[in-house]
């Protein structure tokens, strides 16, 4: 009884030892990237085939927790690369001084120009309000129409969630000085505000709201994975704010060359082809999109620069709280 156990143990140990021979690259990312339904497993396999190294993911909760984790660990972090910050957080990340230039050419398939010496996009998406076509034949076509309608929406809290923060920036980028007035008008359309994306999306699917703040790519999930064509996103005339997800190299890494190799790898077809149907976002470099992934695109893209977003966050948050607290 014991002998096979010991043999298995030894085998496992030798497998570990074999794996530990090459260099190890540690990537700090958000939890859902590494899950079996995310891009993580495919990325690990493809990169390890190319690099003769061991790629390890360390998961740190969700996107908003990532930067906190980087700051908590500081220069002592065992991570070499951080994957999953978005452009609303990059100014803060750059200010920590913990990131080093990546030295890669800019990503080629973004709808806006984006070139940052520290952060390299690996995917992106447009925020949008998603609704059920069978229940809502004429969705609102702008924030103003939404505010004037009786439609009920569920959104995420900008104080705890990155999509929530994205919506805050969306309204700010679209309306500037008028953002506070728009929020006041929207207040009676908002059923509630959830801590994160999945609670809001779950409530929408359960019928608690007519629309939910999500991405233009959300209907693609239902189309492709569930053969359900009932969901769509509402085209807003103000334009749609972008979420651009980026990778950065930590300055304290002991594997700078391997880290650069990984960042170059994030732009390769092997990595990019995984993105649409695992992260349900757009790839950052040209690759063929899967059948049924998109039927149309927003007419206009909005994105504040990292510095604008950082400067706008505090005041915009106060406006939002004041408008919705009434």
């Amino acid at each position, binding site marked *: 009884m014991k002998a096979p156990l010991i043999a298995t143990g030894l085998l496992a140990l030798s497998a570990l030892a074999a794996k530990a021979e090459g260099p190890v690259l540690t990537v700090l990312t958000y939890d*859902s990237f590494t899950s079996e339904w995310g891009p993580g497993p495919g990325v690990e396999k493809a990169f390890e085939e190319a690099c003769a190294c061991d790629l390890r993911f360390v998961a740190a909760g969700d996107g*908003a927790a990532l930067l906190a984790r980087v700051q908590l660990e500081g220069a002592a972090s065992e991570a070499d690369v951080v994957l999953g910050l978005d452009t609303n957080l990059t100014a803060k990340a750059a200010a920590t001084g913990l990131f080093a230039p990546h030295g890669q050419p800019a990503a080629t398939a973004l709808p806006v120009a984006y070139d940052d010496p520290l952060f390299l996009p690996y995917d992106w998406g447009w925020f949008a309000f998603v609704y059920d076509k069978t229940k809502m034949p004429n969705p609102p076509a702008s924030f103003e129409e939404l505010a004037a309608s009786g439609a009920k929406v569920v959104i995420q809290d900008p*104080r*705890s969630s990155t999509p929530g923060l994205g919506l805050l920036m969306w309204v700010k980028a679209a309306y500037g000085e008028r953002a506070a007035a728009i929020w006041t008008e929207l207040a009676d359309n908002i059923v*509630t505000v959830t801590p994160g994306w999945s609670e809001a999306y779950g409530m929408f*699917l359960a019928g608690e709201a007519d629309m939910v703040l999500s991405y233009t790519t959300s209907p693609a999930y239902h189309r492709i994975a569930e053969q359900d064509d009932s969901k769509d996103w509402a085209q807003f005339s103000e334009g749609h704010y972008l979420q651009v997800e980026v990778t950065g190299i930590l300055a304290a890494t002991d594997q700078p060359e391997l880290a650069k190799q990984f960042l170059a790898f994030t732009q390769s077809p092997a990595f990019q082809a995984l993105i649409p149907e695992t992260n349900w976002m757009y790839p950052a470099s040209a690759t063929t999109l899967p059948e049924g992934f998109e039927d149309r695109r927003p007419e206009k893209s909005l994105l504040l620069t990292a510095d604008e977003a950082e400067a706008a966050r505090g005041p915009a948050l106060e406006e939002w709280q004041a408008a*919705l607290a009434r």
Partner: protein
Amino acid sequence: MASGSRALAALILLLVAAPLGAVAWRAEGLSLSAADLAALRFTLMQAALSALISCALAVPLARALARRRFAGRGVLITLLGAPFLLPVIVAIMGLLAIFGRAGLVNIALQPLGLPEVSIYGLQGVLIAHVFLNLPLATRMVLQGWQAIPAERLRLAESLGFAPADLARHLEGPMLREVLPGALATVFAICLTSFAVALTLGGGPRATTLELAIYQAIRFDFDLSHAAGLALTQTAFGGIAALLAWRLTSPAGFGAGLDRPWPVVAPGGWRLGLDGALILLATAFLLLPMLAIAATGLPGLADLPASVWAATGRSLSVALLSTAATLTLALTLALARHPPPWLGLAAVLPLATSSLALGTGLFLLLQPLVAPGRLALPVTVLVNALMTLPFAYRLLLPEARALEADYGRLADSLGLSGLSRLRLLILPRLARPLGFSAGLSAALSMGDLGVIALFAGEREATLPLLIQRLTAAYRIETAASASLLLVAISFALFWACDAGGRRAAA
């Protein structure tokens, strides 16, 4: 025993204080802002109301359950405990299926031409907190009732006590012993409310301290602010615990002969009221549970294989934390002449922000070892710490009565150490021990706690896996996995609780 329990209590206080201290130390200070005052006011108000309503309903409900006999009573009592074991987000979805915009209540109101009722707002926060905590409060009070020796009730019966006399001489003193602790416990749980307050509160009106801590740590990385908020939150939990300790007075019924309870239940309108109470509470507590089961059932057969590994991990975490919790709680509850801070040690973990606690532990441990390697041990530790207050609160009244009733006899017989534990303590405390074990195991199954902060790639527990499923759009599969989690939690709870009751009988 006495010095041991003090040392343990000091260790627990240290485990709560050191992480918060680490956050403050790293930040080189504490800070609070004017906006925090509004959050503090809302947090205290909703926690106090939730505690008052839960306990006010628990007293008549527990009395009805204690004095009435009907078919299925034992099963019902166990089932009514279930909502307390639900992961918060599962509970919210269950409540929405009944009280939400598309819920049963509104579907029923619509054809009657009545206006839609909205759950979003303070009412929603209170409904959810009562839903989650009424079961615990009821069980605490019910235990108090069942701890009244049958001889006292027989005496009351032969003296011709009216319900009012019964209330004054038996129920009053019992409630003085049990209620302050129940109030403080529910208050402390609701102090750390985050997802319920935000999701059902309807927006930034319902900002709690815990949400402010989230914002401070995750978006602002303002650790001094986070530490200030976390200490404020813990301090109010501490104040509640000390108040409860001051207000508690032992009922002093003396020992009985463990005869079966005589049923001295008044008839007439009181019978109708008890029946209505039990019926309403059952509907309120079990309808959302049924909704959860109905959503999760269809996908149960198609759960991904990784669910089973995660279940195994969660089970081992739950069993280990339960063993730790029971050892800690029993040692603390058996302490002779406990100083007030002993009770404090057993309530404070409840009022502590798990995010701040996790962040502090992370800061303390990170220089020593890679956090990913500690995910499961840290989860066991934090779960044990977080479930300790319940176990302590449930054991304390009966441990005190045990000491008062049998302590001197046991001393004079020279019964001490392991034989005292085996012959006296474990048999006499079997019922609350079983209940505490069930509660700890079930809560540890469902608690996400700090694992999200520490988790490596492959160490997902069942709650973390459910979170990953929802993040990957697999909402239906997540509902099925949630149902599995709830079913296992409940089975653990039922097995321990029934085991304890059987051993006590």
